[in-house]
């Protein structure tokens, strides 16, 4: 697989503060990556360094296997950092024309991209008259102008209302569907969970995990089971080796799994033991739970 971005031992100090500490990872083509981390964990600084706006204290990075200079590589990338930055007195179209000039591409795709983000009707209004959601959508249109190899989004839904968040998320999913590589930094975990296949977890500048979402914690989730005879059910549970700790709740027992199981087999086995399950549900651990567990461990 082609690497799009390789980062090795990237470090940034601000005085005595280590904002990013010895971070290394590789972004492969075609995946959707999420960079997770609490506020101030170094997400934006890491992105700032690979986007040529923050000077690294040490370490290095290379785009597309290092075949082009960094600023030429950035012409092939679409990126939005923190909040949308455009010239206030220029209209949407004029702003995008400028981006085309910088990226050295034809201006023919401007209208098409404005349609994608639902801004075609406001194409001639000055940027200063836009709402935050519209500004953010214009930023996405601008990042898409060159049909980028990789789209980098830093907190794209920050400060938006629910409709705005939904709209941005739909656009991201639509873009991910076209096979574009995406790198999404966010502290909103359900956002990342919905679109990402891989995650990179940062905590106070240090990378603590990098890999597929499912393998983040060696974890098989839990099952919620219930039966009319709860005592019999409990004794059945304790005899099975794949069941871990049990929590009693009004809905039944929530049992942590120690290995992957087939719920149909479990049902059959329980029935053979004379227990008719009135409830059986497999719950995967949410990304949020995994993330909290992971950041606690370290």
């Amino acid at each position, binding site marked *: 697989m082609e690497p799009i971005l390789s980062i090795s031992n990237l470090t940034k100090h601000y005085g005595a503060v280590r904002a990013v500490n010895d971070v290394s990872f590789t972004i492969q083509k075609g995946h959707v990556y999420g960079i997770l981390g609490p506020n101030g964990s170094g997400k934006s600084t890491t992105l700032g360094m690979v986007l*040529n706006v923050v000077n690294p204290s040490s370490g290095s990075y290379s785009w597309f296997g290092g075949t082009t200079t960094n600023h030429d590589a950035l012409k092939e990338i679409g990126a939005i950092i923190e909040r949308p930055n455009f010239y206030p007195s220029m209209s949407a179209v004029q702003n995008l024309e400028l981006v085309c000039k910088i990226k050295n591409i034809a201006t023919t795709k401007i209208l098409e991209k404005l349609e994608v983000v639902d801004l075609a009707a406001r194409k001639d209004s000055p940027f200063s008259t836009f709402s935050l959601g519209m500004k953010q959508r214009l930023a996405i249109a601008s990042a898409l102008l060159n049909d980028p190899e990789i789209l980098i989004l830093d907190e794209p839904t920050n400060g938006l209302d629910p409709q705005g968040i939904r709209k941005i998320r739909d656009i991201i999913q639509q873009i991910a569907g076209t096979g574009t590589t995406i790198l999404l930094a966010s502290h909103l975990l359900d956002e990342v969970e919905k679109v990402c296949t891989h995650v990179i977890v940062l905590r106070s500048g240090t990378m603590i995990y990098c890999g597929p979402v499912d393998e983040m914690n060696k974890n098989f989730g839990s099952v919620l089971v219930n039966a009319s005879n709860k005592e019999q059910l409990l004794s059945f549970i304790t005899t099975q080796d794949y069941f871990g700790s049990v929590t009693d709740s009004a809905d039944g027992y929530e049992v942590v799994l120690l290995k992957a199981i087939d719920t149909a087999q479990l049902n059959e086995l329980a029935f053979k033991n004379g227990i008719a399950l009135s409830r059986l549900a497999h719950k995967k651990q949410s990304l949020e739970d995994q993330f909290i567990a992971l950041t606690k461990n370290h």
Partner: protein
Amino acid sequence: MKRLLDIEFHKFKYSKSSKVLTIIYLVIVVLLMFTGLIEVTINNFTGSLSDLGIFDFPYVYHLSTYMVSFLKIFIAIVIVSLTASEYSNRTLKQNLIDGLSKKELILSKFYLALVLALLTTLLVFLVSLSLGLVFSDYTEATAIFSNLDYFLGFFVSHLLFFCFCLFAGILVKKSAFALGFIFVWWVFEGILRLISYGIDLKMDVQTYTYLENILPLESASLLIVEPFSKVSIVKGGIETLSGTFEKDYGVHWYNVLVCFVWSALFIYWAYALLKRRDL
């Protein structure tokens, strides 16, 4: 170079302040052209200003380059605000992310400064040429094509000032403060000159002449010295008061050189500053 100029002109074209200030600049230049029609009374002389011979070739070149020079502050504000607003709108960051290198960014701003300096020089040349053709008593080719070095002086002093503004915009990041910085620097140069004048008086040395030729703003202002004492009626007045009066009105090569060196330094410093900074 064409791409970088295109980028910077796009920003210039669609910025409100640059549009307004450029129009003000042009309007004032045109208004100045009509001052030749103003009736004045000096000593026992009455008539329009053009009758004083101030629009004669080649004197008109000296006068108009000197007068129009004061207006460069309008263009300077454009450059300062175009540069500093890139910081306040954070578009500088976005430009870099979009694939402009820091070097290209400074170069594109420098090219704009260069082109604006060339355009204002061309403008003042056309204005003084037409003033001369209308009002001058002699319109021989030798007169028309003499003393053209004032335009070199005009161009160089503008280029220096624009480069200084660019540097101030990058250094200070806020338009108003950057303009303040330029003013403070100008006062600072004045204080330095006063000190050196004092030293010269006390110690009997010649620091003042060196200093005024080395300081950027002062050296630029020495490129074109005041033209008024050259007018026969004024000169006559001074001579009656203080005997003989001789003054060197030429554009000196060393001032031109000093200004070029400063322009290069300001651009380099702007680049070095930007390169070192995290945005």
